[in-house]
């Protein structure tokens, strides 16, 4: 049977179909949702295919386009009211550029929707408010834009724009509704080549334009709420229109079957229709081949895939069964009794179907055949709901997403040639979004981390001068190894061996202590920060009851002093004079840091990247000093030892000299050491601490020791890595000395 000839027009994309085919637009290079990949895995490892990277994205259904090693997609920031087109690398998910424009878009079943269309030079994207952008593919600069509303008098459809632009070698095709049913624009300038008038003012819905050759004439197919239509490709005249009512919104696009038939399905009880388009001379006529009512079969959101003269799509009945239909509309097989997919997306590659379960995020791999449902593998890689966005496959990597998270997985047999030399491993919840100058990607090769051993304890509970009576909260270690502690209403300084050097009182109970590069000692308290010189003389007090709540950590970045405020749930930036500069981590919406533990800890690494504990979200977040979120490590996971459990963990953190991140957790208390990639290096178990400990402050020195505050026994545990233990254990150490990592 003659296959419909879309390939004639997919031009540039075909040139590189061999091994690494791009996915340059919605539904792939030929707009048929089929990837010409080979050598894909037919079996997956028990945990599923390896996840190369994952990103947090704004709520929505915006799939990606892939060109070369770049991935392009739409995103949005609800905190800043900015709409983005982002470009990240395919191998690592590292951001290359981000185009941003201010747009207030309120969520209406998600925000972002469409897939950009890209080629070597340009990136074309439609935003939810029907503004069409042409960006430079290398830099993300905006070249020109058009607005459906202002330029064509269209109305933004309910639930925002879902149409994905269609690119041809020299033009881009859009269907704006309003004054023009369809327009062809020049890629470089955006000038109109032709437009199809819209006398009936058919409104814009969510369907995308599909190229086809029907009755020997190249045309573009589109569907409105009043029926599908075909427009001539060369000059945009309306060739045919088949009146058939569709309800509310049309999300799927017309599917050309062969040179004469078109299949159109839609949601909201609209059913499906197969029509035949024929031509006599210049007159086109259409007739209905069959019409399935709403109770029979329809696909709500996704356009079916045509393969071996059968159509494959997820239907509506029984929570979304993946159905194989023959060309007469008869159901050949469904996934009944096996799986239901709600509104999940699907893709065909290498005779394999990849289908997402919309509700759960489970990805299923099916063998593509026309006789039965045969599942080869399945994996749960995405957390959750509304995994409806279209997927994209290129170079052996599949990019998929659910409502809020996007991941890239390796589905090819051999890992495709990638920038990174190390094999991709499954990393727990790591986000690699960073500006190009930030160190990200694979950690450098290093020897295995030695376990830690408790070497001594310092201070303790009591009323003596070297002891604490009620509370021991903060700790900092200066460059000479002197241990500064704060608790009750006093600061006590100990030598590395544990002898009390001196102490002084503070006006209020101190919650944290930090030593500035110039030697000033900062003590964070409720509503204020006191600054002392190295001998303990009070220099000044920064008091601000309006702004400062409870300062639980202090750090220094450049000239700025960073105060972590657990009550305001953000980090305040002050300069050396005590002038307020700004906040970090406090978005306009009130999201951001969640601190059920009541403690916010921060530390600054050598590159002035600020690490904070977002304990309610079970991760450590990284910010620039400007307040931009770079990424995070850690995730909630009860089974994986690298994950965090409980309501709020980790509570405190410190960074070792080697750049590793040491965090303390509670219930049960312990210390965990991670590298910057989020891989767990070692654990110091609960035996070293009182089981009721929580919010244990931690500090490091430049010799690799870890100092952890036991908040119940009111002493400081000093841990050293095994081969470099400092001296014999002290006689009055707690009885459970044998610490194991």
């Amino acid at each position, binding site marked *: 049977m003659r296959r419909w000839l879309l390939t004639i027009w997919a031009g540039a994309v075909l040139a590189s179909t061999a091994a690494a085919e791009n996915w340059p637009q919605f539904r792939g290079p030929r707009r048929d949702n089929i990837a010409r990949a080979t050598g894909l895995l037919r079996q997956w490892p028990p945990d599923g295919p390896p996840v190369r990277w994952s990103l947090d994205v704004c709520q929505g259904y915006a799939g990606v386009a892939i060109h070369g090693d770049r991935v392009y997609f739409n995103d949005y920031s609800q905190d800043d009211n900015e709409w983005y087109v982002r470009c990240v690398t395919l191998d690592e998910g590292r951001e290359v550029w981000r185009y941003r424009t201010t747009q207030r878009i*309120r*969520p*209406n079943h*998600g925000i972002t929707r469409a897939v950009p269309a890209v080629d070597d030079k340009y990136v074309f994207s439609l935003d939810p408010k029907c503004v069409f952008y042409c960006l430079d593919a290398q830099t993300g600069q905006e070249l020109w834009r058009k607005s459906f509303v202002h330029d064509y008098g269209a109305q933004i459809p309910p639930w925002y724009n879902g149409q994905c632009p269609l690119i041809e070698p020299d033009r881009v095709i859009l269907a704006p509704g309003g004054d023009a049913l369809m327009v062809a624009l020049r890629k470089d300038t955006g000038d109109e080549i032709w437009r199809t008038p819209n006398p009936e003012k058919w409104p814009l819905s969510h369907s995308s334009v599909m190229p086809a050759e029907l009755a020997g004439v190249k045309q573009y197919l589109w569907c409105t709420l009043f029926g599908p239509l075909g427009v001539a490709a060369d000059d945009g005249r309306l060739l045919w229109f088949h009146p058939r009512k569709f309800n509310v919104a049309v999300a799927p696009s017309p599917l050309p079957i062969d040179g004469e038939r078109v299949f159109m399905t839609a949601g909201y009880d609209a059913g499906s229709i197969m029509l035949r388009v024929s031509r006599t001379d210049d007159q086109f006529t259409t007739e209905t081949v069959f019409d399935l009512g709403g109770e029979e079969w329809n696909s709500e959101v996704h356009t079916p895939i045509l393969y071996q003269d059968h159509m494959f799509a997820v239907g509506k009945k029984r929570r979304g069964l993946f159905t194989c239909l023959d060309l007469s509309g008869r159901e050949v097989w469904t996934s009944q009794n096996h799986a239901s997919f709600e509104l999940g997306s699907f893709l065909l590659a290498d005779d394999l179907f990849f289908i997402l379960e919309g509700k759960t995020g489970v990805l299923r791999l099916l063998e593509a055949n026309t006789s039965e449902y045969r599942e080869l593998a399945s994996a749960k890689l995405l957390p959750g709901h509304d995994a409806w966005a279209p997927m994209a496959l290129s170079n052996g990597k599949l990019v998929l997403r659910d*409502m809020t998270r996007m991941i890239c997985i390796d589905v090819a047999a051999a890992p495709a040639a990638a920038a990174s030399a190390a094999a991709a491993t499954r990393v727990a919840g790591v986000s690699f979004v960073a500006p190009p100058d930030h160190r990200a990607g694979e950690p450098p090769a290093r020897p295995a981390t030695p376990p830690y051993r408790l070497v001594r304890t310092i201070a303790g509970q009591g009323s003596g001068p070297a002891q604490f009576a009620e509370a021991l909260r903060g700790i900092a270690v200066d460059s000479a190894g002197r241990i500064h502690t704060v608790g009750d209403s006093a600061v006590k300084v100990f030598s590395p061996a544990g002898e009390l050097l001196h102490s002084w009182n503070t006006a209020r109970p101190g919650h944290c202590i930090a030593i500035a590069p110039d030697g000033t000692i900062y003590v964070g308290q409720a509503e204020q920060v006191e600054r002392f010189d190295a001998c303990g003389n009070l220099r000044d007090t920064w008091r601000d009851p309006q702004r400062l709540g409870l300062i639980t950590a202090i750090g220094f970045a450049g000239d700025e002093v960073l105060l972590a405020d657990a009550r305001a749930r953000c980090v305040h930036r002050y300069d050396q004079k005590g002038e307020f500069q700004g906040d970090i981590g406090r978005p306009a*919406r009130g999201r951001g840091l969640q601190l059920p533990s009541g403690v916010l800890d921060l530390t600054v690494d050598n590159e002035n990247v600020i690490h904070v504990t977002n304990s309610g979200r079970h991760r450590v977040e990284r910010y620039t000093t400007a307040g931009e979120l770079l990424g995070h490590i850690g995730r909630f996971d009860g089974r994986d030892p690298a994950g965090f459990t409980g309501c709020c963990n980790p509570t405190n953190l410190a960074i070792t000299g080697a750049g590793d991140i040491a965090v303390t957790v509670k219930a049960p208390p312990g210390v965990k050491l991670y590298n910057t990639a989020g891989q767990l290096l070692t654990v110091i178990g609960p035996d070293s601490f009182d089981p009721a400990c929580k919010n244990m402050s931690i500090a490091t020195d430049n010799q690799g020791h870890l100092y952890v505050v036991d908040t119940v026994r009111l002493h400081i545990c000093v841990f050293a890595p095994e081969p470099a233990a400092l001296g014999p254990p002290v006689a009055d150490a707690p009885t459970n000395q044998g610490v194991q990592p």
Partner: protein
Amino acid sequence: MKPGGPLTTSPSPRRHRTTLAALLLLTLGGTPLLAQHQYDYHRPVEAAPSEADIGEGYVTPVVQYHPPRPQWHAALDVGLLAAALLIGVWLVLKRRSRAGLLALAGACLIYFGFYRQGCICPIGAIQNVAAALTDPDALISYYVIAIFLLPLIMAVLFGRVFCGGVCPLGAIQELVLLKPLRVPNWLDRPLRAVKWLYLLLAIWLATRSAATGADSDPTFTRDFIICRFDPFVPFFRFAGPTYMLLIGGGLLILALFVGRPYCRYLCPYGVLLSLLSRFSWRSVNITPDKELDCGLCADACPYGAIKNLRAERSTCLYCARCFNYCPRHRVRDRDPQPSTTTPSD
């Protein structure tokens, strides 16, 4: 010979009253044991827009909520039932007043019948009790237990006072009775057996498993046929299936001439009451003081409850008609003081 029949009315000692009170408390007290039925009607709410997104200070309205019927309604009903039973006892056994009983029956017909529309009643409660005893998932409310047990307890103590003054179904038949015909014995006996069959059928159907949806299809699902074939509730509601209105109407027309046909031949609760009242501690004594054996009361009872010139406890429906037929009653009415002299015979 000492005056008075085998059973004389004597003032009940206090301990019987306290026993009654204790039993009432037993049935009404107790801690609630809520069944663990939780519905997991759960949809993701993240897809709904937040108030901040909607803007302009919009506040999501609270969903319309209607609380369940307050419990004191049901408690009041139980209390009124207990009170009506006790008043009935006093009216019939102590005051021996037909007029008073009619007034009580009328009041109960209005309250329990037309106002509460006859539901829930002790007759139907048989089914609830049967279901609750056999099905671990069936629930029964405290008040239904009390409504079921109170008339039975009174039957053990005082006889079928429920039938006489309280039951609205009985009251409606009582009030329409014009000219009672006597039902001959050969008809009366087998008809009385119909009650038994009805009771057994009702219990059997009430203990079947409840309908569990389209998947399973037991031949007989649980059906409360006493409620379904209740002849007078459609009158109380002024609505109901046509066939029941016809049956109820037919029974009422029959009740013009035959005394309380439903109560005597159909009521399943009457089976229980008749069993328990057989040994009641106190019962209707037709004569106020001494037995004359004159036989003038023999035609008094429209329900055939006078056998051998005595009120048969299991069939006596406490209607208080017979008192006025007794000559001793008229003597007492004329002469308010109770007679203390013994007649010669």
